[in-house]
């Protein structure tokens, strides 16, 4: 019995040691771990392709059964067109000459969303090879849902607006008050640093502001929902995103030109 148990015990302990070592390694060297994660994702991508296609097929079929698919597509087209027109309009009225590069929308599929980082980031199936640039905004249903923080050849990571580390200059369209969009890792979005004396009402639209280096102004983020508690002389506003952040299957990335989009006053 002892001779039978020993090799098993030794291998079990070795496996445990390796597991703990890997666990420590993943926390000590997150960059290397991230590369390993990306590598495994890339290796499995081809094998998972049929599942992804099947998933899309099931989704499309479901939409068709509910007679909503065509309406949703049409709505998405109009929103993209609206956004493109808005960007073109901004470029046309910009005081500085517009850049040569054209603003293009890159449609990407969400390939990974960790449960423990559900409100922090997602991975998409488009990367540098498809024109995705770090810093480019990601949209869904015409509303900004995050921005690209890392990009590989055929994949990118998008930090969501609900992430606690996400900071973005924003403006309330109706009052022209500036603030900073910030998440809390729990699905909430806040507009920070808004003055308490201004009366913000529910439904006011919040868009990206002119002060961002990477994001074009005027991209809608969401609507004001309620006021938070006054702190340090400011009253944060709770924002409801216009996009369905809990169900992100496809996103649009503002492609070439996102970094050099013109910044003009409204």
């Amino acid at each position: 019995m002892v001779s039978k148990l020993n090799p098993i015990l030794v291998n079990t302990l070795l496996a445990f040691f390796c597991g703990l070592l890997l666990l420590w390694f993943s926390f000590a060297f997150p960059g290397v771990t991230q590369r390993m994660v990306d590598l495994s994702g890339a290796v499995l991508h081809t094998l998972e392709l049929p599942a992804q296609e099947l998933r899309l097929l099931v989704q499309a079929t479901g939409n068709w059964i509910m007679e909503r698919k065509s309406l949703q597509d049409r709505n998405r087209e109009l929103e993209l067109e609206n956004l493109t027109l808005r960007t073109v309009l901004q470029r046309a009225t910009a005081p500085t000459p517009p850049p040569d590069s054209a603003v293009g929308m890159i449609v990407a599929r969400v390939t990974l969303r960790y449960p423990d980082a559900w409100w922090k980031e997602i991975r998409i199936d488009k990367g540098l090879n498809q024109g995705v640039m770090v810093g480019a905004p990601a949209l869904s249903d015409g509303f900004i849902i995050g921005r690209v923080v890392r990009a590989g050849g055929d994949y990118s990571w998008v930090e969501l607006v609900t992430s606690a580390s996400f900071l973005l200059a924003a403006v309330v369209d109706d009052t022209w008050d500036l603030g900073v969009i910030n998440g809390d890792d729990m699905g909430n979005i806040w507009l920070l640093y808004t003055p308490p004396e201004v009366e913000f009402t529910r439904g006011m639209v919040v868009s990206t502001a002119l002060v961002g280096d990477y994001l074009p102004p005027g991209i809608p983020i969401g609507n004001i929902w309620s006021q938070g508690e006054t702190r340090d002389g400011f009253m944060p506003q709770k924002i409801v995103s216009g996009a369905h952040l809990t169900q992100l299957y496809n996103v649009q990335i503002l492609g070439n030109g996102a970094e050099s989009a013109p910044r003009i006053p409204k």
Partner: protein
Amino acid sequence: MIASLLVWLLQDFMQVLAMGIMLVPEFFLLVVLYKLISGPLVSVRIAGWIWFAFLGGVLWDLRWAASPGMGGLINVLALVLVYWVWDRTPAGGRSALLFAALASCAHFLSGIARYVAWAVPSQAALRLFAIQQLLAVPVLVGLCMIYAFKVPQTHV
């Protein structure tokens, strides 16, 4: 082991399909447990399954959890516990029912460990966990039936 590898891929395939909707049951762990107890309990063979379960868990972590090691540890722990009980059970008592009990315990422990380690405690997460456990039942029943019809003729 090739069959277990295919089951790992199938689990991955299903998780891609169900991403954002539900957590796929640990088919890989269940099949590895079945393979472990359905063959002779030889040390070298058991050690092989320990490492196979470990690597399967690590790869799953790399694909879906971003903290490699945890899944491997959970798999190894579940495997060793099941082996420990199975090995100490007299041959006459090694029934499909016992396998069902051990495998469901292992699956439950694996699920609860991942839930505690990664999920933000909420009703939604608990619901996902419950659905994952329920979906494992048909697979467990299937494996038990295979065990009941095939294994006694060859190993008891």
